[in-house]
């Protein structure tokens, strides 16, 4: 039942981050919301790869090499989330450098002061 709880936790974090992205006015708060939603998505994917009572997919003292297939959790979601976390950092860095540049132009962090794309 462990992965059920973490699945619900991940969905709740995703929804909170999405809500923050939609309602906050401060640009840095919007990026924080993105980062929370990112963490939520990763928790959802890892929860979907969990198998009942299994352990990490690393062959050592705890896992026998002969019947490893019966003893380990799904390695594919772990691999995908591993790369997704690094990409999340890179995307966050690009967003924050855009914010720094925008602040240098307009001296404001409030999204209401950026009307160029409004219609």
């Amino acid at each position, binding site marked *: 039942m462990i992965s059920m709880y973490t699945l619900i936790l991940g969905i709740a974090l995703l929804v909170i981050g999405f809500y923050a992205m939609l309602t906050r006015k401060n640009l840095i708060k919007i990026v924080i919301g993105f980062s929370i939603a990112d963490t939520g998505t990763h928790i959802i994917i890892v929860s979907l790869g969990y198998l*009942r009572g299994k352990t990490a997919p*690393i062959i050592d003292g705890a896992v026998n090499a002969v019947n490893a297939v019966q003893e380990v959790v799904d390695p594919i979601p772990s691999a995908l989330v591993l790369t997704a976390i690094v990409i999340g950092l890179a995307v966050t*860095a690009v967003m924050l450098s855009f914010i720094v540049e925008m602040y240098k132009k307009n001296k404001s962090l409030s999204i209401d002061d950026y009307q160029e794309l409004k219609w």
Partner: protein
Amino acid sequence: MIKNIAVLLAVAGLLMIFLPVISGFQERDNLNELAADYVDGSINDLGTPNVVTSVIVTYRGLDTLGEVTVLFLATVGVGLLLKGNREDMIKISPLELLETTSSVLVALIMVLGIYIFTHGHLTPGGGFQGGVVIASGFLLLMLSKVNAKISHSIMNFVESFSGVAYVGIGIAGIVLTIGFLNPGILPLGQFGDLFSAGAIPVIYSLIGLKVGSELTSILVTMRGE
């Protein structure tokens, strides 16, 4: 008012998407066929104890190459956006405690990072984690020695060398064996040794160097230099 309703509708819609996932969710008991094949192949064909490493480096190797490319593009993007404004460089004079301990700690952190990515096929960890640890070592250097210059040309050399070598090993896989990024170009060796699992530790070390130099460049640029 209309905006609030729209936000409410969007959040409710997102919840509706995930409702069937929660209600129909059951914890699985067995690996699916593909994952079982990966676990089996990782142990018997590739000789890699850490299955996640063999999925990242070999089975989904092309994904990882694309991912490293995205990281490179992000580094270039940050550099392009924030280049050449030295005037708002972050300069906080460090505490004496930080200054003294960092001279001991930086070398140890670097060694830990190198250990993590060379043992990526045996223990948890690998190129991405080791690269991040190396970047945090450089971060400690930046925070403790404010005037230390981190040479851009060395970073660029390490970054492009490891990128070229990564693709070169992939092409060597086509020439010598059956496919791109096949680790079988080097002998498999004894299961569980440091020098085993073919080219997997070599590829993961190159990824570690690449990630470490790219993240260090991002940190240096965000700090403003």
